[in-house]
Every structure is written in structure tokens, then in C-alpha cells.
């Protein structure tokens, strides 16, 4: 019996689609463990805001992640929390910085100033970072094996469909917002 042509075609098509949509993303990304567990919610529930740890300095520079010194302000001594104990033992006491894996890290040639967005345009942190402040555990850091950047830059959906507005931090996402606000501008506004 001869196979009908569509069946033969499908014999190639279906595994390829499966491989492309299901297997490929698994191969492309790998998961790395964060150095410490971190509970954002426990901190914000205590009355802290984003800017208490991730502040824009007076000179317009964004401090990024807080230095160990800032953590040590509250967590100088061990307690009954394993995460805090690990922080104190591995970083506070030896005076080392925590090598956090940053989901929002952009390529070298990108210049992203927080000040015009956060202070100038009053954008909420969650507009780009999502409900990160409500997380109770560190999110797995999923990294692209080729580009070396977090999956958060592309967004959770490999097809980039059904994204929420804070999912995805590619240049096209920046441009989309800038264009909508009539703020399209020069290359060197956002590149260095």
C-alpha cells in the first residue's frame, strides 16, 4: 500500500513541529540556581517599598541590586531561617557580594536609565518587572544558551503570544512603548 501524500508529508511535519515547539525550547534554555532563596513578599509586607532596596540615586544612577552591606543592616546575625543563615554565613560575614542572577540584565551595549522612566515618567516598577515584588521565592533563572541572557528578556511564550505587558524586554518591546508615547528617538539614547 502506498501512503497518501499528505500522510507522508505529515510524517515529517508533525515530529518537526513537535521538535521545534517542544524540544527546541528545552534545548535552547537551561536553568540555573540562584545563590540564595529570597522572599520579596516577606520584605514588602514588612512595609518596605521597591525603592528601599532598588533606589535611583541623586545622580540619576540606578543602584540595581542592594549590596550585601544593605542586607546586613537587618540580617547581621543568624536566626531560625535557613535562607537568612546562608546569607549571613556565606556573604555577610566574609563581606562578599551575593552573585544574584539578574532576570532583567540587558546586553552590554544597552543603556537603560531608570531615572527617566521611574522618576520622570512615573512608571510603576511592575510595568516592566511584573509582580516581582509579590514573589515568595526566587524565580528559577532560565538562561538562553546562545545569547547568555535570561528567558525573561524574550518572555515566557516561545511564540511571544499572549504576553502580559511586562513580559518581554526586547528592543522591540522598548520601541513599542516609546512609539506609542511619541518618544521614538536616536540610537544612542538607549545604546552605549
Amino acid at each position, binding site marked *: 500500500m502506498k501512503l497518501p501524500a499528505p500522510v507522508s508529508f505529515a510524517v515529517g511535519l508533525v515530529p518537526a513541529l513537535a521538535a521545534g515547539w517542544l524540544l527546541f525550547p528545552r534545548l535552547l534554555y537551561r536553568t540555573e540556581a540562584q545563590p540564595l532563596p529570597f522572599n520579596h513578599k516577606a520584605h514588602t509586607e514588612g512595609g518596605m517599598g521597591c525603592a528601599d532596596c532598588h533606589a535611583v*540615586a541623586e545622580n*540619576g544612577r540606578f543602584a540595581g541590586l542592594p549590596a550585601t552591606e544593605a542586607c546586613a543592616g537587618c540580617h547581621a546575625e543568624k536566626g531560625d531561617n535557613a535562607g537568612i543563615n546562608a546569607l549571613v554565613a556565606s556573604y555577610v560575614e566574609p563581606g562578599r557580594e551575593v552573585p544574584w542572577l539578574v532576570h532583567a540584565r540587558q546586553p552590554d*551595549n544597552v543603556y537603560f*536609565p531608570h531615572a527617566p522612566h521611574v522618576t520622570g515618567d512615573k512608571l510603576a516598577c511592575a510595568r516592566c518587572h511584573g509582580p516581582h515584588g509579590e514573589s515568595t521565592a526566587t524565580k528559577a533563572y532560565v538562561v538562553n544558551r546562545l545569547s547568555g541572557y535570561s528567558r525573561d528578556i524574550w518572555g515566557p511564550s516561545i511564540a511571544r503570544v499572549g504576553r502580559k505587558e511586562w513580559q518581554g524586554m526586547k528592543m522591540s518591546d522598548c520601541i513599542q512603548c516609546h512609539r506609542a508615547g511619541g518618544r521614538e528617538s*536616536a540610537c*544612542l539614547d538607549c545604546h552605549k
Partner: protein
Amino acid sequence: MHTSKHTTSLPAHRYTLVVDLDRCTGCGACGTACAVENNIPPAAEKATERTGTVWMRVHEAAAAGDGPSTFVPIPCQQCDNPPCVDVCPQRAIEYDPRTGIVAQIPVRCLGCRYCMVACPYHTRSFNWWTPEWPEGMKATLNPDVSIRTRGVVEKCNFCVQRLQAARAKASAAGQAEIDPADYVPACVEACPSRALSFGDAADEKGEVARLAKDPESFRLLAGLGTGPKVLYRSSDPAVRERLSRTGVTRG
């Protein structure tokens, strides 16, 4: 004054470098400060004057006989009508219509070097070698400037990272415009004889706008119509005449 074909009108800011040739001693501080600020690597082993990566090069324009030489620092002239922009197949060079800065985007560059041919001032450098620093020196690199790779063209961007920082500072303070004191390129800060000054020529009351109208000011190869935003000054009419007509030939 030249009207650029890249914009319908002249930009709102026209950042301009003024070079007083009476003051320049050819000490090389400007180019050194530039290399420190912009993460330009030490010379590769085989690098020469023609193949090195230098954004701010000082040339000696010797007078006839034993007459005094003029030392002429030549960075990218930041033309209002830049010849390099039109020839780039990658659109890796862009004239910023708000600042007048001719921006080079090295990651877009494919290294064809058409722009280097098009530039009448020879101010562009091609990276013939992978940039390398001794291990200990890497910590001294400027975090505000990304490092370029081998095979691309680069040039002076008027230390645009300092403009970015000044804008961020203004934003943080809730101001729309930057404080001019916050945006000074590294070469200007370094010059020991204060031969270099910098400012916004669009500010009619500013010093640069005044100097632009001064009869002692001129532009290199003025006849080409490129409209440089690097303004040269000399009290010697012969120097003005010669440099505005022929520029400084390389090597």
C-alpha cells in the same frame, strides 16, 4: 551655516567642540583621556598610525622653515551634513536630530569601511585586532561604555555616555533639561592648556555661539559643506586660511 539633509531644520541642541589652536601643545592628554573614558585598548603589537584605534588624534601642521608649528587635535567633526551616514549599508551611523551628534553604532557595523573612505577628516578607526587589556587593567575600564569587537568601525561620539548620565541626573531631579556642567567630554576635561571647550551652539547667549561668529574661528575643509561641529580657532590668519582650505593630511 549648513542645513542638514537628515533633518528638516537644525537640531534643538548643537553640541560643539571648540579647539583653540593657539593653546594646543600636542601633549596627547586629550587622546589619552579619550582612550581611558571610552575603553579604547592599548595599541596592538602591530598597530601603526594608520591602523590604530584613535578617536582624538593630534597632528602637527608644520610651518615653512623654522616657524612655529600648529598642533591640531582632530576628533570626529560631528558634521551637520555627514558624508559617512549616507554610505553606510547597515544604517549603523545616525545623525541625532536633537543633539547634532553623529552616532556610530558599532554592533550594527559590518566592517565594510565605506564610511572611512567617505570621511574627509580621517577620524574613523577600524578595529583590526581584538581589543585586549592586561588582566589587571580590566578593572579600570569605564562601566558606562561598551567594548567594541574586532572588525567594526568606531569613532568619537562626543562622550555621549556623559550626556546620557546628565539626562538621567536631570530626570532624577525632575528637570527637563540637563545642567550644561554635567555634560563635558573627557578630552575637554583633560586638556592642560584649556585648548578645548565644549558647549551648545544652539544657545544663542552661550560662549560657543559667540565663538562661532568670531572671525578667528574656522572649520576644517570648510569648502566641502560638511558643516562640522568642531570649531577651530587661531590668531594666525595663515593657519586659518591653510587649515580651512586643505585640512591636515595624514601621516
